[in-house]
């Protein structure tokens, strides 16, 4: 019997969404907003989430409506 194809893309998406909220809407923001980091640091964190989304995109080839 064939295993289901990429059954966890939804879960991964939710985890990635939670990561985004953690980075941008939680006390973690105190770290990157208050530590005198480089002005483009938020963009770097944002890019990290986008790379995660690229991974979901590659894993969810078969999970289309």
């Amino acid at each position: 019997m064939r295993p289901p194809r990429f059954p966890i893309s939804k879960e991964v998406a939710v985890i990635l969404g939670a990561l985004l909220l953690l980075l941008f809407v939680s006390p973690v923001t105190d770290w990157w907003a208050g530590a005198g980091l480089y002005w483009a640091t938020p963009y770097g964190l944002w890019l990290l989430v986008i790379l995660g989304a690229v991974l979901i995109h590659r894993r969810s080839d078969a999970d289309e409506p």
Partner: protein
Amino acid sequence: MSHELATLFGAGLVYLVSLFLIAYATDRGYLPDKWASHPLTYTLSIGVYATSWTYYGSVGYAAHNGLLFLTIYIGATLAFVLSPVLLRPMLKLSREYQLTSLADMLAFRYRSQAVGVLVTLFMLLGTLPYIALQVRAVTESLRVLSNEVPPNTIALVFCATLILFGVLFGTRHISPRDKHRGLVVAIAFESLVKLVVLLMIGGYALFGVFGGLGGLDNWLQRHPEALDALYAPVNQSPWFALVFLSFAAAFLLPRQFHMIFAENLDPRGLRTATWALPAFLLLLNLPIPVILWAGQQMALGINPDYYVLGITISHGPTWLSLLAFIGGLSAASAMVIVTSIALASMTLNHLLLPASYPDPEMNLYRWILWGRRLMIGLIIMAGYGFYAGLQHSQSLVELGLISFVAVAQFLPGVVGLLYWRRATRAGFITGLLGGIAVWSALLLAPLLHSSGVLITDMGIPQLVAASGLNKWAFATFTTLIVNGGLFLLVSLITRQSPGEIDAARACCAETTVPLSGVVAASSPAEFRAGLAGTLGAEMANREVDQALNDLGMRPNEHRTTELRRLRERIERNLSGLLGPQLAHIIVTRRLELDSEAKTALADSVRYVEDRLEASRSQLKGLSVELDNLRRLHRQILQDLPLGVCATDNHGKIVLWNLALEVMTGVEARHMIGTDLNQLPHPWDGLMAGFARTAEDHIYRMEVAVAGKPRWYNLHKSAYADPGIEGAGFSRPGVVMLIEDLTDLGTLEAELEHNNRLASVGRLAAGVAHEIGNPVTGIASLAQNLRHEDDPEVMRQSIEDIIDQTRRISDILGTLKSFSRGSRHLQQREAFTLREIVEESVHLLRLTHEHDGIRFDASCPDEVALTGNRQQLSQVLVNLLSNAADASKSGDRVDLLARATDNQVVIEVMDQGQGIPEELQETIFEPFYTTKPTGKGTGLGLSLAFKILEDHNGSLRIDSQPGIGTRVIVTLPIEETEQPYESLAHH
């Protein structure tokens, strides 16, 4: 440096004309089709999210609120990252039920025209300030670049151009199945323009103003307050509220819904947009801080909202400032065009059509088309009116955020739509009205007050200040707490209508219950007649044809299951044209449904299987294993080398496997849901007749298929209620197995024929001898006649010759009759037992192989049989021949026949050596013989057994070694009537 107003106007006009050309070239196919359907084009078209607010307003917002400007894009990123649980189900729903706007989707889920009206009105109210914002951004950019106050005519020309574009390229098709490719490519081009231009301006700010990254770092070190101002607001109250608002706006704003769902050419595009749109937004926002600091460094002295223009007009090249203007124009025009198209469809479906449904005699398609065009014009002009009536004191972002809070009010309803089946229409309407009331009080009233429309601010600013929260955070939380709270509370205390329950099941995609009810109309022709009363004959015909085509259905379809699907498809197609609620009303009234009728198992099975196939990738754990098991069982049934047909308790076909498809030449998709009586000939009579009969097994049924005889074994059995929800079982269904014996039957007939020929061969010598005697007698009589003159002697000789020739004829007739035997059981005739007994004994006596054997036959007169005379004669010949072979010279072979009440018993007895007990079973096997090589074929007894079986008779052997063998044959006198005999003659 400044530009002439005419130059800017000309540049803007050239850009808009080029936009027309791009859309036109796409629609006419001058541009490759793959460009329009490319996922990146789709992603860029969703980039309509970034309007003049992003293009101009972000810098201004960053100047006052630091990194808060990023929240508008981080929230959108969150929405797209969560697309597998949010956007993808909505896209699926939108495509499946042809829902072209948020109002359509919510009206569909909550089954209420009032919902559609309310959503549309509120969407219009919340979006008009946003359209006004775009118009204002364009006129302000003209003022900044030209140092002149532009006349209102320019704003009017801008609006008129956008109306023209929307009418030409946004209403080319009225059905959502046909996408506006030209519009999609043009909007994608606009996104590309604003991105490239903003990056160029950012590059100019970095390298032209600061001299590179090093210069920027140096400037930041000298001005640490700039970096502090950027980061300081991050932990303030509006941060979370703005992320939340932009999360909702990213897919609920009319333009967003339209581009993400209504204009989606390929669902795979959304997968790319999951990462590509956030990347687009990131790139778009990357230059914002640099442009802000460049403006501050240059001390431009203008509103920071327009630093994008300011830094280029002060020191940059002329072409760059013109490009900066084009970028802003691009951002504003894209938003106005798409928003007006989306709102036009919404307004028409939920306000105009329900209020004044046109006469069916009119061409409804044309009415809808012109209605949408009119609405596009009215909406853009209403936005212009809003722009003209507003004071210009509000910032771009402020106007945008008012719209964002407005559309966020739909979020509870959408979450309920996707994930809460218990949500009710009353709950949604109450919650939304509560949210609207609070939004109006907190945001709309102050806006109108500041514009002079209202004379009092109703103490709202004091209330917000007392809360200690930022205005946006306060408005967001307050509206959503009221909205969500009422939605929850009222949903819990109210009941759903049956329509809501069905819609909730469809939206939550968790059900496996099939479409309920049976359509009153019995054919597509009756559908046409029914719909014509509301849609007009032309539209009714086109819609029925379209639905038939969508489903791959035949125009003469009559199956209730299929007609139920046809009705559903028509409703969905009409939903795309008229809105879901109106479509539902029309279909409900014109194509009546008997909702009390029980759903047949055939419908349930197909529906459940379709649903399982469609949502297979969503199954997990034990469900996956169960589904795999289901597929395995199904595959076994499908690949079984026997025809399998199962019917439900209504006699409708539930299963029709591949072997049966090959056997009958009829595909399963045309058979499922069909009554057995509606099968094509000759299968209707065969299978429906078999289903009715009390017999569970019928062997060697001969059926004429395409004029040729074929033979089948039929078996059937009842099966119990599988317990499928909605099946309404009260009694079991039937499963039938159909085994095609034609190849085997042909082979057996050949063997039988060969055996008969072999018997003829063995008889030939005796026959020749038997014929030789009368021939010799005839010759002698003929010679004597040459010399005979006595007429009396001559007459006697002639009589003798005639007797001898008659004797020869009888011998030849018997041989011919035996050798010619029919291959088909169904070639029956009536005859007496005596006839075949005498014929068989006569044949055996003819052969001189058995000269020393005495054949004694005893048979009652007038015992009638029905069957294949030649085959039964061969049985007796084979048995007598075997008995004679086993006998010694001088022995006697007896044939005793007697009749009882309902059967004939024939015993063939010899006085041979008998058959050893261990061989008494083996001798029935084909090709097994104890005779010397060349004397027997080994087929005689096995064929005799089979022939008797075909005649519902039997054969058994009673043998005692050393004493002799008795073979007992029984045959029914009157055979059971063959129920399908007539089939053989069709």
